[in-house]
């Protein structure tokens, strides 16, 4: 469970510190990386010195040329070894630098995934899926890259520039300053440019998203577009979005080019100054050609790292914003979790009871959704719940498996408050068939067995028979192996709902809730599902939530919910006789003014 520790590591520290703490969870790799970094920079700085010596030896200015040939051989061999070692240590620095990032990312990925799975419905209600995907992919990337492109670069550039500057200035301080004169300018320029590019990049992404939304809606709604002959209108919308993005793209080119051209110019200007002043010194006999060559080589070595300062600034900025979001996400409190001392559900009779239940969504605590709901359902009983959209009827379903927690009263199964139970045992015992079913992009078999992946094939087939789906499935060319979901075979709304029902049947729940789960199933099939389910319903409590009365007329008790309260309750006949809201709805739903129907009934 290293990811759990990783997610907690450095909690409370500032973002960048926290990333460093995370990084330090792989101390050996970090140490190897940093040591390699020091060694490879030292070797790299040695190269121009060796080259300078070689030039001087060749010119015979040292020791009057005595033993020059041997000295050249020695220098050449040292240079070769230095080059090889520099290559090896650079490799080790880069590799382990990357590896630290990937190991950190691995732990963070797991932590993010686990958190997503554990966060309760109320969180997922208010957060866009797109934002979560951003956290799990882009923000995580930003944090991952920080060690290799941020921290490590600081050490590398610090060593190269610092030691390099010292070496240059201590050799000849005027020439040294001239050689380095480009550095501050380029560093500042590149940092500012990177920050500006980053800012415009974010805007550009937004514009491109806008553009792709225009296209996506156009293609998705192509029938509307064609039906209203809206082609020209759509092209106009497209052009607007596209031109704005193009303009910004051009602006970004300008920012980038101005900066790189200026950086090149400033580099070459200081090179020219070094050549000029150095040339004068050489002619005056105060300096050897080799030293001048060493200076010029130093400059070429420093050119890259100085330019990269901008990237470094960018990396810090990115890590800081990405890390902020990522850690804020990881530190979120999970609202609904096992309470301390939670026990697994002990099933006896399987009686479900709502006792004076109140509920309001955490996002709107003063707007009650349910108030004072009470009912009891024993094994084998069916409860029907009806009400207009927004009346709170679906909320009742969500309180039983603790998708949300009640704000008043309690929900019990066999006398045990659901909040005192372990979530796993509770959710195994309560199945809610939702109206919107999510299909996973895998085969039908896996989709049905989603809640019980170890189930035998026979059980899967039986569940889909109950849900009136089996015949359809075996009619498919690849039967239960058929892949459905996003890019698989598409199922109709009714088929999806039936698959959803089959999926819930796999759980052998003690409480089964149908939350408007047959809205898209045709009446005939629904009738047959109901018949099949009769046997199934004998061993459990069944709740049917619907606005289609035919789905729940047969219930043992029907609750009519309005504005979060039970306004009428009783059997179908009792409620009809009552002549209240239920009756009015019934009249509305049966064919208006159709006597024939009454006769047929």
């Amino acid at each position, binding site marked *: 469970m290293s990811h759990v520790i990783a997610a907690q590591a450095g909690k409370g520290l500032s973002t960048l510190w926290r990333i460093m703490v995370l990084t330090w969870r792989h101390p050996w790799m970090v140490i190897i990386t940093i040591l390699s970094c020091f060694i490879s920079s030292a070797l790299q700085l040695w190269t121009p010195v060796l080259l300078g010596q*070689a*030039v001087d030896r060749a*010119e015979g200015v040292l020791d009057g040329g005595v033993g020059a*040939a041997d000295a*050249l051989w020695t220098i*050449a061999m040292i*240079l070769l070894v230095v080059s*090889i070692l*520099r290559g090896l240590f*650079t490799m080790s620095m*880069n*590799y382990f630098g990357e590896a630290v990032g*990937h190991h950190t990312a691995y732990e963070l*990925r*797991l932590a993010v*995934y686990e958190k*997503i*799975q554990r966060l309760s*419905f109320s969180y997922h209600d208010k957060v866009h*899926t797109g934002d979560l995907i951003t956290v799990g992919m882009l923000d995580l990337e930003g944090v991952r890259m920080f060690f290799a492109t941020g921290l490590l670069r600081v050490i590398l550039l610090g060593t190269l520039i610092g030691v390099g500057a010292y070496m240059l200035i201590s050799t000849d301080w005027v020439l040294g300053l001239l050689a380095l004169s480009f550095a501050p300018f380029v560093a500042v320029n590149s940092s500012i440019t990177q920050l500006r590019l980053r800012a415009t990049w974010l805007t550009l992404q937004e514009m491109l998203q806008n553009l792709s939304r225009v296209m996506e809606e156009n*293609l998705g709604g192509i029938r509307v577009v*064609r*039906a*209203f002959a809206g082609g020209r*209108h759509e092209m106009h919308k*497209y052009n607007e979005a596209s031109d704005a993005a*193009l303009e910004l793209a051009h602006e970004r*080119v300008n920012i980038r*080019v101005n900066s790189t051209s200026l950086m*090149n*110019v400033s580099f070459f*200007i200081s090179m020219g100054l070094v*050549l000029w002043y150095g*040339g004068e010194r*050489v002619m005056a006999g105060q300096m050897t*050609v080799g030293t001048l060559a060493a200076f*010029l080589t130093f400059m070429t070595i420093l050119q890259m790292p100085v330019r990269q300062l901008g990237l470094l600034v960018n990396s810090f900025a990115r890590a800081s914003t990405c890390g902020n979001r990522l850690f804020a996400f990881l530190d979120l409190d999970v609202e609904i979790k096992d309470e301390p001392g939670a026990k697994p559900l002990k099933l006896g009779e399987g009686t479900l009871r709502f006792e004076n239940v109140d509920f309001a969504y955490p996002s709107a605590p003063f707007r009650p959704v349910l108030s004072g709901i009470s009912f009891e359902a024993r094994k084998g009983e069916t409860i029907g719940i009806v009400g*207009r959209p927004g009346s709170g009827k679906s909320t009742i379903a969500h309180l039983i498996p603790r*998708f949300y927690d009640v704000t008043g009263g309690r929900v019990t199964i066999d006398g045990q408050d659901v909040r005192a139970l372990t979530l796993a045992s509770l959710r195994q015992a309560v*199945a809610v068939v*939702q109206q919107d079913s*999510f299909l996973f*992009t895998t085969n039908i078999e*896996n989709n049905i*067995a*989603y*809640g019980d992946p*170890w189930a035998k094939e026979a059980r899967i087939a039986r569940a889909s028979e109950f849900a009136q789906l089996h015949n359809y499935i075996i009619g498919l060319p690849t039967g239960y192996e058929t892949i459905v979901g*996003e*890019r*698989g075979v598409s199922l109709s709304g009714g088929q999806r709902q039936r698959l959803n029902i089959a999926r819930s049947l796999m759980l052998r729940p003690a409480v089964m809730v149908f939350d408007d789960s047959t*809205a898209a199933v*045709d*009446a*005939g099939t629904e009738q*047959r599902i109901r018949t099949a389910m009769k046997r199934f319903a004998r061993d459990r409590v069944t709740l049917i939530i619907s*606005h289609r009365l035919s789905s729940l007329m047969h219930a043992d008790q029907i609750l009519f919910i309005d504005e979060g309260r039970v306004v009428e309750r009783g059997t179908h006949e009792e409620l009809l006789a009552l002549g209240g809201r239920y009756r009015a709805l019934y009249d*509305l739903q049966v064919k*208006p003014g159709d006597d*024939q129907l009454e006769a047929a009934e």
Partner: protein
Amino acid sequence: MTEATLNTEDDSEDRNRRPPRAVVGSSLDREEEVFGKAYDPRIVRRIWAFVKPYRSQIYLSVAAVLAFTLTQLAFPLVIRYAIDNGMAQGGGGRSVLLWCIAGFAGLIAINFAASWVQETVVGKAAENVLFDMRRAMFAHLQRVSLSWMDKTEVGRLMSRLMGDVNSMQEFLETSVLSVGDIVLLFGIVGVLLWLDPLLGAITMATMPILFIVRLFWLPPAKVSFMAAHHTNSSANGALAEGINGVRTVQSLDRQQVNFDLYEEKARANLRAHLRAAKFAQVMVPIVDTLTGISMATVIVVGGQMVLGRQLDVGVMVAFLFYIQRFFDPIRSLTMQYSVFQRAMSSGTRIVEVLDVPVSIEDKPDAVALSRDMDGSVEFRNVTFGYRKNQPVLKNVSFRVNPGETVAIVGPTGSGKSSCMSLVHRFYDVWDGSVTVGGHDVRDVTQDSLGAEVAMVLQEPFLFTGSVIENIRYNKQSATREQVIDAARAVGAHDFIMSLADGYDTKLEQRGGNLSLGQRQLISFARALVADAKILVLDEATANIDSYTEMLIQKALKRLLEGRTGLVIAHRLATIRGADRIIVLQNGELLESGNHDQLMEKQGLYSRLYTMNYSSFDDLPENAEDMVATAVGKAT
């Protein structure tokens, strides 16, 4: 893949031993990044067509790249000249040095100008080409046949419009640079040989070695990079699935199983990335070693020559400078090859979209359907289908008189929706003709047809934007008052006013903040604003709560007032409100007449009707049998 097939013989209850039948993330492989032919002249020609308008910019920037590269080549030469002819004993001294500095300054100016011109011009031209390409694709998609659109996933099209077009960008921007790389490579070779043929040849002996090494390195390295890319998108896919399906996961208590599966993916991703990093980094010591060898050669061989006065010391310095830039062009050129391959495969996919045939176009002599046509619709012996030899409509004839409302009913698959599409000429008939206001739809312009035939689809589709923009849609001439009147007429005004900003409320994606019924009402208002003579409407089948349902029925009446209406009806209330009913079955017109006449006939209609379903689409799956008996009776 972590997919585990269930061992059926295994009867054990041991859940720890048997792997679950479970996967996270898509079971389907992502769209393979196909490395097709590296060079396909046909594709290149098509892409060139987009570049062509900017060719003067391209020539200019190629010239700038050349100038830039030449200055890069010249800098060490100036240094060499300054050392040998200026600083060396017996050289020209100060004046030469100053001349060299002046030359250096000149080169800097050229370098600056060239790099500025080249990057700006190429960068902008590349962006222009991309946007042109995307616009051409998008505009083309506005004209391709709907049957092609039906078969094609929006997501796939989007990945071509965004992803493939973007991957052309890398290519367009770098291809001009690679001209510079080639020049630089040959330039360095040339300059070194010119400075000293012997030393040059010995020094460059390492160059082919690197070339060969990279040739062997590239294929496995590419595989490892691709693998890293794949495992990454696979893990990200699983994450996205976990987010989208989180409610299902929690309600079915699947967290632990999913976590274990995800961990495997994350670990595979980690391993693939480490492997790719190894491949990427292994080149570093190789290049450094080869550079070291070259430098050592220059020091030993060149140094001896300088000692022996066969070589100027400045040449040696120049050599050392060139060696440090030696391997850059080789590195970027080999990389450029992959970029080129990727661009070719993207280009192929882009051209595919551009080549989708446009099946429905205005005739050259098409006339505009005039406003004062009578508004009748007539089908004459229409035969039509989507797939060869599988007609969906067979010899169907009927007429809708001006101002009349006709309901089309029939079981799923009877050809109702096709009728509707044909009025709008989404498709062309195989045989027979469809006329609107006395004109064959093939003889009028599609724009005028769209203006006179309004359509309400079964699934209301709303665009991102405000309510008013959605109602107005492309009828920009509609005033705010007209929009509000329309909304009032269909009964949408009240709920629109209750939204945060009334008519200016921004709708979330596809109107996600509205209920289905409300979206339906807005799409009614949109049709009302369009104010066409003819209304074609496909009634929603989905279950809408009874209250909204009532509103919709009222709105429908208002919508059909004074218009010719062709309604694909599912609700009995709608059907009974129609002037005439046409019953379709298996693509054939079975019965037509008003409700009473049809009930008298005791045919399919009366059977369907008496089956007591509140909607005609609520047919049980054995409708086939039932219909068969009904037909048997009718004939």
